[in-house]
């Protein structure tokens, strides 16, 4: 995938360095915490962010942060534009046309995590009319969703569903790229890559957030959910072929 650069705000030399040039950099992080409205925010962001990183999708590097051992934890990710905030001016059709492979990757990743909240506000491009770079963020409504005590139910309900169509069962909004992927040529690649995510990796990232909004049994359910979907992604897409409205000529599943 393409290299992503992150600007820093300032740098200072370190006095304790030897031969190599080592710097203390100042940059900016965006941090969020669990709230009543979004009680699964940290586990959702952490698990999905790490899965996206594994797939080399353009998510900002992230960390779990807290001031001290007694304070509440937060999910933090590097701010990829510490300068002025660009507008949410993504045009999904142009994005899918100019960056077809990456756009397909984002869509299939969102299907894996059942992200029912992908819109032009949480995808960013460098230029709306001719994007060359794409960044993705905000996965706080994927996986366990955002309703309190509804995490397990959501996983059960969406296990075999597309999870991104904005339908009555999934809720949320229709994935902004779903109607604009015009070719199936990159589906196979991403189905393969997602299928290769090790179960041990999924288990580790899920276990890392036990106690930060989810219990161990719920983490185990998430492992099972993700593991099932990564292995049955082709089948899930096949069952929902009609939702890919711009792909006219299916060859992948014939």
């Amino acid at each position, binding site marked *: 995938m393409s290299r992503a650069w992150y600007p820093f705000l300032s740098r200072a030399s370190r006095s304790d360095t030897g031969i190599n040039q080592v710097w203390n950099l100042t940059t900016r992080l965006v941090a969020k915490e669990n709230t009543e409205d979004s009680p699964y925010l940290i586990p959702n962001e952490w698990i999905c962010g790490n899965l996206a990183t594994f797939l080399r999708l353009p998510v900002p590097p992230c960390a779990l942060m807290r001031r001290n051992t007694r304070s509440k934890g937060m999910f933090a990710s590097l701010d990829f534009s510490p*300068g*002025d*905030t*660009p*507008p*949410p*001016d993504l045009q999904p059709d142009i994005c899918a046309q100019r960056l077809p492979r990456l756009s397909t990757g984002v869509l299939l990743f969102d299907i894996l995590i059942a992200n029912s*909240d992908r*819109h*032009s*506000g949480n995808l960013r491009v460098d230029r*709306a009319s001719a994007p060359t770079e794409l960044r993705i963020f905000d996965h706080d409504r994927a996986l366990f969703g955002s309703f309190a005590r509804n995490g397990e139910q959501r996983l059960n309900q969406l296990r075999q569903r597309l999870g991104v169509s904005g339908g009555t069962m999934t809720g*949320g*909004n229709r994935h902004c790229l779903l109607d604009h992927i015009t070719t199936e040529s990159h589906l196979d690649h991403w189905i393969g890559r997602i299928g290769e995510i090790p179960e041990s990796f999924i288990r580790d990232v899920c276990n890392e957030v036990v106690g930060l909004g989810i219990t161990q049994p719920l983490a185990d359910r998430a492992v099972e959910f993700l593991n099932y979907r990564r292995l049955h992604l082709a089948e899930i897409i096949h069952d929902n072929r009609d939702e890919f409205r711009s792909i006219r000529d299916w060859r992948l599943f014939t």
Partner: protein
Amino acid sequence: MKSPPRYLIAKYVPDVRRMEPVNIGVILWNHGRTATRFLPVEEAVGLVNEEATYSRWLDFWNGLLDQATIKPARGAAVPKEDAAFVDALLKMQEGNYLLTDGGLLTDKLPSKQIAAAADHLYKQLVSRKDSRPATPREQGVKLKFMSDRLFDETGLSQRKDFKKSLPVPCKVGKVQASFKFNYAVMNGTLGSVFHRVQLGVGQSVNSAAFMFEHVQQANLLKKERCAAIVRAGDGEDGIGGETAVTLEMLRSFATVINVADHEQAADLISQVAGNGVH
């Protein structure tokens, strides 16, 4: 009952930690019709940190207002005729770029007068006529922005023979010098050169005159293929005194293109570029 005309104020926050917003535009809604006035990008130089991002926000907001509905990230699309349109629009802000509720106009607003009303609000709330004079650096950035835009609009910047920051080797006395021109047309041989000149900065004027004179003395280009790009007379004072003298001096070495006169500047750029003829 019809909702009264309502307006929003667009604001820019240079540093979100300090939160000191500056008004940059107004959006007036009147029963499905809208009128906007934003600080032009060239006027925002020195105010915003990134002109390109500012320009994207203006395009984004204007683009939303060109549509018949606004589709929020979550929820149903809101038609422009609906009074809730303004509420949906209010959500289209982020980070340094804010939209705030300005208020309601208590008087009836005939649809023909919406533009005039937007002008009035803009003058009252946004216009920077009384602001401090731009620094030379800000003037330079403005001139660059307006020049770049002209080359884009005339289509010259898309041509394969168009170059930016082109070093031109040229003999000065016994020395082989290299003059860097801001823009040039070159396809094997040098076709024309354009250089931005800040009229209020003596060094900028003198070095441009020196460069133009020497490329002509070296028979690299004729005078009509050399252009000095300036910005003059777009304030209330017009062109006079020292500026007029400087312009006259530049005219002895080059075609003077004044970006303040947009149409004439575009014509002159095409003329000096020679429309692809070398």
